[in-house]
């Protein structure tokens, strides 16, 4: 638990540092309303505050971008681990994980973010759900003696995806 909160904070801090500082708005109510409809309320609130966006679409966009940045970060991490794990039993599952994340980071998530902007919610939804599946599949690569060094990261990405999908559903169907 501790590690995931720490890494989440680090990642959020990273985003905050890079994003334009925005005036605090009164959208706390909206965020709370939205996040109540997601499977991970606290994660959702933590991720979205103190972000900009007075509408659901921009919140969805923030979430999708958060998934992408986490996935990108995880992919880089995996690729680093692969180099260190050459010749060990971990090398294969790690390489397989990289293969799962590469098209997600390179193509699918950017497509989903683009789709959100253009109102193609069905597409965005499918791709982000699929990303969660890739994270789960990566985790499944490790079994028995091969303990996964990616559990927290995969779990976080999976949960962020679930939140993003829930928010997009709100876009599709309304509150």
């Amino acid at each position, binding site marked *: 638990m501790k590690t995931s909160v720490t890494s989440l904070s680090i990642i959020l801090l990273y985003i905050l540092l890079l994003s334009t500082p925005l005036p605090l708005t009164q959208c706390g109510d909206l965020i709370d309303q939205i996040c109540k409809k997601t499977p991970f309320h606290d994660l959702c609130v933590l991720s979205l505050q103190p972000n900009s966006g007075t509408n659901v679409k921009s919140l969805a966009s923030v979430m999708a971008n958060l998934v992408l940045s986490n996935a990108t970060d995880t992919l880089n991490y995996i690729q680093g681990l692969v180099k260190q794990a050459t010749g060990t039993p971990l090398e294969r599952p790690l390489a*397989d994980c990289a*293969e799962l994340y*590469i*098209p*997600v980071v*390179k*193509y*699918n998530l950017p*497509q989903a973010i683009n789709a959100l902007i253009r*109102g*193609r*919610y*069905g*597409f965005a*939804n*499918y*791709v982000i759900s*699929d990303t969660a*599946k*890739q994270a789960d*599949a990566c985790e499944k690569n490790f079994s028995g003696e091969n303990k996964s060094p990616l559990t927290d990261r995969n779990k976080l990405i999976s949960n962020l995806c679930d939140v993003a999908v829930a928010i997009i559903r709100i876009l*599709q*169907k*309304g509150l």
Partner: protein
Amino acid sequence: MDTNPSDTPSDLEHAPYTPLPDNPSQARIRRPFKVFAAIFASVIFLLSLVTLIINQSQEPLPVQNQNRSPSTSRPTKSFSKPEPRGVAQGVSPKSNPSFFGDKVSYNWTNAMFSWQRTGYHFQPEKNWMNDPDGPLFYKGWYHLFYQYNPDSATWGNITWGHAVSTDLIHWLYLPLAMVPDHWYDINGVWTGSATLLPDGRIVMLYTGSTNESVQVQNLAYPANLSDPLLIDWIKYPNNPVIKPPKGIEADEFRDPTTAWMEPNGTWRITIGSRHKKTIGISLVYQTSDFTTFKLMNGVLHAVPGTGMWECVDFYPVSVNGSTGLDTSANGPGTKHVLKASLDDTKRDHYALGVYDPVADKWTPDNPKEDVGIGLQVDYGRYYASKTFYDQNKRRRILWGWINETDTETDDLAKGWASVQTIPRNVIFDNKTGTNILQWPVEEIESLRLRSTEFREIVVGPGSVVPLDIGQATQLDIFAEFELEITSETKPENYGCRGGAVDRSALGPFGLLVIADKTLSELTPIFFRPVKTIEDTVKTYFCADETRSTKAPDVFKQVYGTTVPVLADEKFQMRVLVDHSIVESFGQGGRRVITSRIYPTEAIFGNAKLFLFNNATGVNVKATLKIWELNSAFIHPFPFDQIRME
């Protein structure tokens, strides 16, 4: 050469005519019958004459029609018989016409029909499908196109269906990519292949059947390369780009391949055809822009006696590695696979060889096992296969079309026909050096639910062992067998042909899939090692459909071939079970057999899995790992529904 499916199709037992009840020596008593018979015969003769005339007017080569039908080995006599679809239009037969007429058709129930739909194989929601087309990976998505009839569960009105997936398993249906809407493809948008250009463009070359049923090659490309789903396609305004050249029959010129780049920067494609009716050939065309093509001299290769080559495929494999190669790869450390679908026998054949890019010629490693006379891609119900290079995971992926073996009447009743195999990873077998290995793509593992393991179960001669697992209709089975010889074995002369009931000393042994608990219906997948006169062991790998169903109108046969089993290897099989399709991989994919089965009893909860040993002189020790597989839930792409307030 091999124990391939029996040379005398079972339909010859059920000749398509009623014997005339006439005996001239008893003329006086039988006069009324004689007259009736004469009138009956004349009527039928006239009807068949009319049918023949109609056929002839559509097809300028009358004799060839009948030879191409898989259902007769000689021209039909005076009684009209339903001709398989497609033959008159200039492609290989696409149906299994009922020989029995509706009276003898089995009383299929809705439950039986609905059970036949596969859980995790690609098939459209309904209607007819055949050849896979233009497979490719682009911007995070795998694409599959396929020959599709939007109107019926039989071949005809052929369009390009389209589906996408991020993982080759979970497919999403998209709108039709191309329909027959120009004079150059009005009689069918037929098979074709995609080429990904280095600058990121995609070109699709496909065969169109024109308004005069001439086979031409056309160019199409995505309307919008920034659409990752590649939904809309544009046909090149000046199609066709290739017409049948002089000396080639206008209706024996189809299925252009993916292009490969030569060292000098120009592209080549190859298109199958035939010469003097019996010599299978593949022509080579050169292009730089995919709009103008030049026919090269000679042919890529030719093999006498193999007939028309449909769906030619040509690709490099790495002799050393485990990765696939781009279609343009060549040089030391590569061999080239040349594959053709033989129109005359409806089988997919391939051979390994060496490609000379300067002469544009391919030479087989072993001329005795040349294309069409040697190895088959798959030894079961399988056709029109096509590979593509997956640049995402650097693999060569193989698709294959699996037709139904029930009747056209059944297909129309159930509303669909045909499935695709699970995509297979193809690599060179560097242990034997003489074949490729095919293996289901690893993404199938995402369907795994729970597994059950059995270690070293000993099965005595003539025994059947039930395997206690959950459901037995969606499985991924890994099985390994060792033999304990219990009595002296002499050389024997056996193959697959007799099926699993035929007992020999060292076999058969294997699995009984989709079997009910009384074994009234069962499908054995088995090995039969046979001692030869030279004191070696030859091993057959077989799939026996003869008792797969009680229904009499299903085409049931024994498929199989010999499979190399190396000194240090146990007998290994991997079997994918998915309702009415079974894909069986022998010795790591050295030989593959795809079967279609239509049980009436062994369905839903009644379908079980057994181990069996029907040999006389060995105990079999089996170790298995059996995964239950989830369905893939293939469905239309979830585009947005506009919400009505």
